[in-house]
C-alpha cells in the first residue's frame, strides 16, 4: 500500500474539508457526501482523514470495539459483561473502512467463518465491513455506482445503527454505528434518493480554476510522489495541529452553547426552503455546534450557521430533478435574506 497523502496538504476545497472535520468531531451529524469533478482530491482528503482522528477508548477484547463508557449500547457480549462491573478498556485507532465496489454481501454484513467451519466444524461469525466500521468511518468511493442490493443493506444498517445477521444458521446482532462517507461524480449517474437522505452533509467540489492554486496542487502532488516520506515529514506539524484541534473540539462539544435564537433561525431557514422532515434543521444545528467547537468558541453564532447551511441543506430541498446548480444557489439566497449581507 502506498503512503497516504496528508489531509492538511490538500489545497483549497475548504467546504469539503470543513464537512469532514465536522463529522469527525460529531459523528451524529450523519456522514458526508462529496460529489464533483474527478481529480479534485475527494478520495485523497477522505483517506487522509484517518491519520488525524484521535484514538478512542474501547472495551478490551471486544471485536466490535464497544465504548466502555456507554453501557447499554454495546454488543450483547459487552452488555452481559458490563452488568457485573466496569469493563477493562484500552486505546484503539478510529477505523476508516473502505468499501470497494466489488465487495460481496457476505463481506459487508459478515457471515459464517468458512475456515473454522470447514476445519473444526465450528459455527462462528466472521465480522464484515460494517462491524469493522463501527465507531468509525465507512467510505464508499463512486457511491453512485454501488449495486442496488448493497445499497439496501447499507440503508437498513445506517438507519438502525445495528447490524442484524440471519443467515447460514447464524443469528447475530451487533452495533454498527458509523459515519457514512461517499464520493462520486454526478456525471456517472444520480444517487438513489433514500441513500442521499442518509448523508448529513453534502458537498460539491469543483476543480479550482485559478492557475496559482492549480500549480501548487501539482507541485505538492509531485513532491509527494517523488519522496513520500520526506513530504509526510514536512507536513507532520500541520497534521498534529489539526489532530489536536479535533481532539479538543470533541471534548468541548458538550459545552458549546446553542442559543434559542440560533435554533429558531435554523428552523426558519429549513422551513423557508421547504426541506422534508426535521432532519435538515437537526443536522444544521449539530453541524454548526461542531464547527463552533472546532473554532474553539463557546457558543454557536450566525456565522457558523451560515457556513454550514449549504452543506446541511442543499441535498434536502424538494428539488426539480433537472435543476443542476439550483439547490446551492437557493440555500445561499435564503441565508443571505436571513442574515443580511
Amino acid at each position, binding site marked *: 500500500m502506498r503512503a497516504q497523502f496528508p489531509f492538511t496538504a490538500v489545497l483549497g476545497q475548504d467546504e469539503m474539508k470543513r464537512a469532514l472535520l465536522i463529522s469527525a468531531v460529531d459523528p451524529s451529524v450523519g456522514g458526508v457526501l462529496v460529489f464533483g469533478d474527478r481529480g479534485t482530491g475527494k478520495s485523497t482528503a477522505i483517506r487522509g482523514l484517518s491519520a488525524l482522528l484521535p484514538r478512542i477508548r474501547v472495551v478490551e477484547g471486544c471485536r466490535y470495539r464497544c465504548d466502555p463508557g456507554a453501557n447499554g449500547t454495546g454488543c450483547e457480549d459487552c452488555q452481559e459483561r458490563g452488568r457485573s462491573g466496569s469493563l477493562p478498556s484500552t486505546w484503539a485507532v478510529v477505523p476508516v473502512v473502505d468499501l470497494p*465496489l466489488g465487495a460481496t454481501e457476505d463481506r459487508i454484513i459478515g457471515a459464517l467463518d468458512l475456515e473454522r467451519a*470447514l476445519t473444526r466444524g465450528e459455527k462462528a461469525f466472521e465480522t464484515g465491513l460494517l462491524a469493522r466500521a463501527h465507531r468509525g468511518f465507512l467510505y464508499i468511493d463512486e457511491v453512485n455506482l454501488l449495486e442496488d442490493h448493497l445499497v439496501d443493506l447499507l440503508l437498513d444498517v445506517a438507519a438502525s445503527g445495528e447490524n442484524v445477521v440471519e443467515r447460514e444458521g447464524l443469528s447475530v446482532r451487533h452495533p454498527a454505528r458509523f459515519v457514512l462517507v461517499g464520493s462520486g461524480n454526478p456525471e456517472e449517474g444520480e444517487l438513489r434518493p433514500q441513500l442521499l437522505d442518509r448523508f448529513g452533509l453534502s458537498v460539491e467540489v469543483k476543480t479550482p480554476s485559478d492557475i496559482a492554486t492549480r500549480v501548487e496542487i501539482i507541485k505538492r502532488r509531485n513532491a509527494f510522489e517523488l519522496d513520500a516520506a520526506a513530504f509526510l515529514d514536512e507536513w507532520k506539524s500541520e497534521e498534529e495541529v489539526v489532530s489536536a484541534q479535533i481532539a479538543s473540539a470533541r471534548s468541548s462539544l458538550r459545552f458549546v452553547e446553542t442559543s434559542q435564537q440560533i435554533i429558531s433561525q435554523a428552523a426558519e431557514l429549513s422551513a423557508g426552503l421547504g426541506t422534508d422532515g426535521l432532519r435538515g434543521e437537526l443536522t444544521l444545528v449539530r453541524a454548526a455546534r461542531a464547527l463552533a467547537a472546532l473554532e474553539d468558541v463557546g457558543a454557536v453564532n450566525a456565522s457558523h450557521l451560515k457556513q454550514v447551511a449549504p452543506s446541511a441543506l442543499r441535498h434536502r430541498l424538494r428539488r426539480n430533478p433537472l435543476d443542476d446548480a439550483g439547490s446551492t444557489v437557493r440555500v445561499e439566497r435564503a441565508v443571505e435574506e436571513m442574515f443580511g449581507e
Partner: protein
Amino acid sequence: MRDAWLAHLLDLLPKESVVRRAPLHITDDRLLGGLDLAATLCAGKPVVQKGLLAEINGGILIGAMAERLTAAAASRFASALDLGAVRLERDGFTQTMPARFGLIAFDESLAGEPGVPAILRERLPLRIDLDEIRHLPKDAAVNRDVVLRAREDLTKVVVSADVIQSLCVTAAALGIASLLAPLMAVRVARASAALAGRKVANDDDAIAAVRMVLAPRATVAIEAHSAEESPSQPSNDEHGTEARGSNDRQQPLENMLIEVAKACIPPRLLEALKSGGGRRSTGSNGKSGSTRSTMRRGRPVGVAVGKPGAGARVHVIETLRTAAPWQNLRRDKARPDSRRVVVRASDLRVHRVKQRSETTTIFVVDASGSSALHRFGEAKGAVELLLAECYVRRDQVALIAFSGRGAELLLPPTRSLARAKRQLADIPGGGGTPLAAAIDTAFELADGQRRRGQTVSVVLLTDGRPNLCRDGRAGREAAQSEAVAASIAVRATGIAALLIDTSPQASQFASTLAEALGARYLALPHADAQTLAAAVQVGRNFQ
C-alpha cells in the same frame, strides 16, 4: 498496425514482465480475486485466489474493446490504478494485494459512439491514434536496457517549478478542467527525462508531455484562448522567491508549449470542436455479435436453495457455508483424517439473479426550421416533464436532435439528467427536416441498448413535415415515404414508441407516421404547462 505497435512495446519491456489480456466479460471473482474452489475443496479450508489485477502486479494489462466496459467495471480498474493495490472484500476474504500495472486500453469505438468510460479515460495519461501512425520509428537509442535504467532513475528526476507551472498554464489554455491531466503530464515529463538519461526534466520533456497528454485532451480551440493567458501570470508573485528568478524564462516556455499543443491537436478533434463539440453519429456499429455473447442475463441479487441447471449457477461459497457445519458428522468413519469436504444435494445453493429492468428512453427532437417556428419551446418543455418522469424511475436517457445539419446524437445514454437538460437547452434549431435519418439514428441506438439488456422506448417529437431525404435531397413526397418506410422497419423490432405532434393543428402525416411506427400518438395541446403536464402524464404510460 495495432499488433505491430504492441509488439514494439513488448520489445521494450523487461523480459520478465507479465503481460495479460483482460477479456471484456471478466467477472469480479477473476478480476479482483476470490475463493479458489479447487484448492479449497482439496485443502478443506478456504484458499484465496488472486484476481487478474493482483496477478499482473508489475506488468502490463491489455484491455481490448475497452469502450464496451460499463462504468462499474471501469471503476474497478480505476480504483486499482489509483491505489496501486486491489482491496479484496469478497467470499469471506479481506486482503489488500499490490497491483501496480500499466493499462493499455484499446478503444475501438466508431465516430459517434461514447468510447471508453470517462472514469477510466481520464486516468490514462497517454493517447495514441493508431490510424495516424504509418510506420513505427526504429529508434536505436531506446531499447530494453534503456527502459530498465530509466525505471531505476525515475524517482531521482527533478521536475522544476517552471515546468510544472508551464504545464498547468498550458492545460488551462487548452480548456482542460481536470487536474488529473497536468498531474499526469508532470509524470510523463519525468519519465521522458529518465528515458533520455537526464536528471532534470527540460523543455523537450515538457513538450513531449504536452504532445502526448495535454493536446489530445484539448476542449477549446487554442486560438481563442492563448491571448488571454498573459493576464493570469501575476500569480507567480504569491510563491515568493522560488519563482522569481525564473520569471523571464518562463513566459517563452509556456508560449512554446502552447504552440506545440496547437500543432499537435488532432485535426479531427478541432473539426469536432468547431462544429460545437457535438458527436456526429454516422454508420451503424457492426459489432453486434460480440455484445451478445457478453450480455448478462441479470445481476446477482442473492442466493436461494436449489439445484443448478436450467440456467441457475451454483453459488459455491454459499453451498460450502451450508455444508461446513456438518463436516465433522459426515466425515468418512473409515478415513477420519480425510480433508475432503462432503457436500450433499441439500446443501446446494444457486445464484438468484434479477433481470435487468433498466429502461433507456431515447428522445428524438425535431429542431428543424418549421418546428422551431412553431412550438419548439413547448416541445422542449414537454421533454423536460418526461425527463422528470425518467428521474423518478431512474431510467437512462439519450437525446437525438435532427435539423438541417442531419440527425445528431447529442447525448449518449446516461443517467445524469442534469446533462440531458443542459443538452436540451442548447439544441440549435433551423434547416430542413431529415425525419428518416432521425428515425434510423434512433433505431440504431435503441438496438444497441437492447443488446446491452436494456428495455428501450423512443419518444419522437416532430411537427410531421419531413422534407429531407437520407441522401440530403430535398423533397416532401420522397422524404415522407422514406420516413414511413423507416418507421415500419422500427415497428418490426417491437420497440415501444411515443410520437408527440408539435404542429399547431394536428397533422395528418404525423398520425400516419405514428401508425407506421406502432407508436402512441399524442398531439401536443395548445395550452399552458399544466395541460401539457397532464398530456404527458397520459403519455408516460405508453410503455
